[in-house]
């Protein structure tokens, strides 16, 4: 097993997986929060934009979105989030395009998780905030979002765990993460194919299990008592 891990650079591959998950989680959180604000806003156009965003990206297969980032965004539209002068141009490019695809896709789920968090807040909180003279954005920042995030830790955590596992789709555009390592292992060591799967599966369990435990702990710790 150790020999396999060393031979196929499994640790490096998982490091790429972690980086993919980390950066796309942050981007997805930001983008998803913005979409949630759109959907909560009193402006009809923004509401519809947020709703359309969620509908489109929640219902499109992730593989398609990732491929679209590579073939469409970069291939057709020429969006190039990496420098051609760099030695690692292709690696950087694919890595960053994958982050965009993962973030855009999961932002739809983040948006809905935050909205479910907003639904845990009694209407009176918003009314009290308005009656003090706080504006829409002030009320959102001071009263609604802090409580919504705390009420949405569990669904947000579910999105994060799904995202960690979904990073494997990035293999489709050649990002050298865990699934890429698995593909190599299957190609060169088909004799131990069960072990190959096991190594990668254990790797993901090591990432997602503590994440799940942390989420359970955090949702208890930061629960809003009413």
């Amino acid at each position: 097993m150790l020999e396999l891990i060393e031979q196929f650079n499994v640790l490096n591959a998982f490091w790429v997986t972690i980086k993919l998950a980390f950066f796309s989680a942050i981007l997805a959180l930001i983008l998803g929060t913005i979409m949630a604000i759109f959907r909560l806003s009193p402006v009809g156009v923004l509401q519809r934009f947020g709703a359309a965003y969620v509908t489109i990206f929640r219902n499109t297969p992730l593989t398609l979105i990732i491929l679209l980032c590579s073939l469409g965004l970069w291939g057709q539209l020429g969006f190039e989030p990496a420098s051609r002068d760099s030695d690692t141009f292709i690696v950087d490019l694919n890595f960053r395009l994958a982050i965009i695809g993962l973030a855009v896709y999961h932002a739809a789920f983040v948006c809905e998780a935050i909205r479910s968090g907003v639904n845990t807040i009694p209407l009176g909180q918003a009314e009290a905030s308005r009656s003090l003279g706080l504006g829409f954005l002030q009320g959102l920042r001071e009263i609604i979002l802090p409580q919504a995030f705390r009420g949405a830790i569990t669904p947000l955590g579910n999105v994060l765990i799904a995202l960690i596992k979904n990073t494997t789709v990035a293999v489709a555009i050649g990002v050298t993460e865990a699934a890429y390592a698995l593909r190599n292992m299957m190609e060169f060591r088909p004799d131990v194919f069960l072990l190959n799967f096991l190594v990668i599966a254990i790797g993901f369990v090591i990432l997602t299990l503590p994440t799940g435990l942390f989420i359970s702990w955090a949702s208890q710790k930061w629960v809003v008592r009413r």
Partner: protein
Amino acid sequence: MTSSAAASQPLVVMENVNKHFGDLHVLQDINLSIAEKEVVVVIGPSGSGKSTLCRTINRLETYESGSITIGGEQLPQEGKELARLRADVGMVFQSFNLFSHKTILENVTLGPIKVRGIKKAEADKTGMELLDRVGVAHQAKKYPAQLSGGQQQRVAIARSLAMNPKVMLFDEPTSALDPEMINEVLEVMTSLAKSGMTMIVVTHEMGFARRAADRVVFMADGQILEQNIPEEFFNNPQSDRAKDFLGKIITH
């Protein structure tokens, strides 16, 4: 009290205000004028529209026709102007609505800091004074869920007072409280009334109405049927609806 109140400027004026909830005509041609420093208690059976009336004054409820002015200024429809006006109108809710994720002191200082732009140190000082005035200063660092209903409602009053409002609205402030906690809240409200605050109070507490009100407004079925000084209203109601209502609550 009433004569001096009547002599001063009207602060809140509602003219021909109408509102529907679907088919229900919940406010029917409401005309009501409240003078500065006046304490008006609105009573009436459930569903009479008294809470709705209270909530239209700071536009937590919209209305379809008529006009509401506060300090001679039309109630704005939305946006910054509305927020600015709301800052001058205190509101105390039936369900307290303290911000659950903030401490008692933060609840009281949020408005002054974020809306009035007062420095935190100063807001904290004023906040503590107000909490002391309503008798919960020792709870300042706790969260709302750790306080009793009566304490929470007193904090909510302090939170409104922190904005230095021109007028305060009370929407059934004691209806969600256990009986033994009602008095502690009414005491705070009575002393507030004595201090010259303009107050509009929707309540079922007749004792408070007798004791603290300058005027009692009786509502039923979306209309103001009667208004009078408390003594006259309670001893000598004019409309059958009011007689019926008072008959029911006094026998129990």
